[in-house]
């Protein structure tokens, strides 16, 4: 099936207007020996057949709503998404529009993204938010780009805490390949209980950026005020990678003095979707706005005296600044930023606080129950939000396999990334986990030989 609305008669009339005899005649500029290759692809399906095929493929998976009880987080979280979110995202006016380059007929997208920016600044306490990045990892890499541009290459050292998400650190390493950066702290073999201030040993006059996570990858809540103050004394910027659900409850990174606050907003209304598309948020101080990559919406007025919104400071971006731009980013996650805004508005201050509290309560109940099992315990004693590291008496992979055999998706096996955490699992809890599910987890682990 195709979506081409042209009849054979119309086609012939159009070919005549163009002045060619057939459709194939339009392609004389293509080298003849490579023209019209025979593509070895399955034959076309009708909509009915495609719907059935895709449904079959989807059903091959075991999902966390119908088949598995899930305690897996590590950067992607199973939260409830109010029905209203998808109803708004399914509006063709939103999802089939382009980037709002023509503001007169794009105010829907522009105002919605302006509101998304506002929700993010109010959440993080920062002054400016851009219109989004691809995901939390690339938003963090863009923080490195910002710092690099801010110091104009005069400082080239990035200090990353080992308790920043391993994949985020990996993305920063990929992104910075051409920048000649010195990367410090990105070492999973160090003492993971040393506390955030231990990073200062690596921060010097060449350091452009310190990157920490909040709560960190292990779920621990640290107040980074002292670290940020000390890093500032050395002239470095500090980027905090934050979980937005945790920010609903915890002290804002802005109040700790952070220069850049980024993170993954998937928990805010975006399905797990096997890893994407997600939503990288990026907030910073107004003084760095010209070095920030990505689109930005600003308020203005139209020629009829109406308040309105436009893409602003576009001369920072690649289509004008070309090779001198901070980043090449162009398309961002527009529709998902809208979804995030609808999620935050629909739950509102009350509902969002409830979500955060439920996450906290369930995780702490689980922690206390799991610690009662022989051989199990919490690896760290620091306060945590909705994730914690569970120390197991057996290799994590064995524990997870056993859980899976019992219909439970266990946590993230930390031994893959941290040699000292071989028997450790990162467990995540959200409002989706009932007491019964947690009790089942505890029971199953107790029964494990």
């Amino acid at each position, binding site marked *: 099936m195709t979506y081409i609305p042209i009849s054979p008669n119309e086609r012939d009339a159009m070919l005549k207007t163009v002045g060619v005899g057939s459709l194939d005649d339009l392609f004389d500029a293509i080298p003849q020996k490579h023209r019209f290759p025979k593509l070895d692809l399955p034959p076309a399906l009708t909509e009915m057949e495609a719907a059935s095929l895709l449904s079959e493929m989807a059903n091959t998976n075991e999902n966390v709503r119908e088949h598995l009880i899930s305690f897996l987080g590590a950067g992607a979280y199973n939260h409830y998404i109010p029905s209203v979110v998808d109803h708004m995202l399914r509006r063709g006016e939103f999802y089939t529009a382009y980037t709002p380059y023509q503001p007169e007929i794009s105010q829907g997208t522009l105002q919605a993204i302006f509101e998304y920016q506002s929700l993010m600044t109010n959440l993080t306490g920062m002054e400016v938010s851009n219109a989004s990045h691809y995901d939390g990892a690339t938003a963090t890499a863009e923080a490195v780009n910002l710092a690099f541009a801010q110091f*104009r290459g005069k400082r080239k050292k990035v200090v990353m805490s080992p308790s920043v998400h391993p994949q985020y650190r990996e993305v920063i390493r990929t992104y910075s390949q051409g920048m000649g950066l010195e990367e410090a702290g990105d070492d999973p073999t160090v003492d993971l209980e040393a506390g955030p201030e231990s990073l200062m040993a690596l921060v010097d006059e060449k350091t452009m950026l310190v990157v920490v996570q909040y709560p960190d990858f292990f779920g621990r809540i640290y107040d980074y005020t002292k670290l940020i103050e000390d890093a500032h004394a050395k002239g470095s910027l500090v980027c905090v990678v934050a979980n937005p659900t945790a920010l609903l409850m915890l002290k804002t990174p802005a109040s700790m003095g952070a220069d850049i606050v980024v993170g993954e907003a998937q928990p805010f209304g975006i399905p797990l979707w096997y890893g994407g598309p997600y939503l990288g948020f990026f907030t910073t101080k107004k003084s760095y706005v*010209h070095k920030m990559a990505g689109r930005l919406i600003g308020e203005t007025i139209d020629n009829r005296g109406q308040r309105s919104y436009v893409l602003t*400071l*576009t*001369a*920072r971006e690649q289509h*004008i*600044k070309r090779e*001198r731009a901070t980043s090449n980013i162009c398309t961002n996650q527009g529709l998902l930023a809208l979804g995030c805004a609808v999620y935050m508005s629909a739950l509102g201050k009350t509902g969002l606080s409830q979500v955060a509290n439920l996450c906290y309560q369930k995780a702490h109940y689980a922690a206390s129950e799991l610690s009662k099992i022989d051989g199990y315990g919490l690896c760290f004693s620091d306060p945590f939000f909705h994730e914690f590291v569970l120390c197991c008496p057996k290799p994590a992979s064995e524990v997870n396999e056993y859980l899976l055999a019992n219909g439970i998706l266990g946590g993230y096996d930390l031994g893959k990334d941290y040699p000292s955490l071989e028997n450790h699992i990162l467990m995540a809890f959200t409002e989706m986990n009932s007491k019964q599910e947690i009790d089942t987890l505890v029971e199953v682990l107790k029964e494990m030989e």
Partner: protein
Amino acid sequence: MNVPSNLKYTKSDEWFDPSSGAVGISDFAQSQLSDIVFVEILVEEGEEVTVGKAIASVESVKASAEIYAPVAGKVSAVNKGLPDKPEILNSDPFGEGWMIKIEGSAGSEMMDAAAYEQDCAGRAH
């Protein structure tokens, strides 16, 4: 178009004042860029610059440009207030809109006002 006769000019639209050492962008440049919303001075006082080194970066609503040192020498002053009011570059490019001062002298490749005016006329369309 305003082209003060006491200044020297480059093909990339910088001006240099041989008597004060001041450097900026020309009236023609500001009108081509239109409404300037951002300026960043890329050099510091005391720094040595060579001809053609990027000394400032300017962004308008629809364009961006790098500004290059028209002469070599030591930077003796930087207009620190300029980044707070980039619109000065539109309203007073030869006065309040100066960017830096360089202790140096104009090379023979720099144009006088008449030559520069002719150069601009050739580029305008």
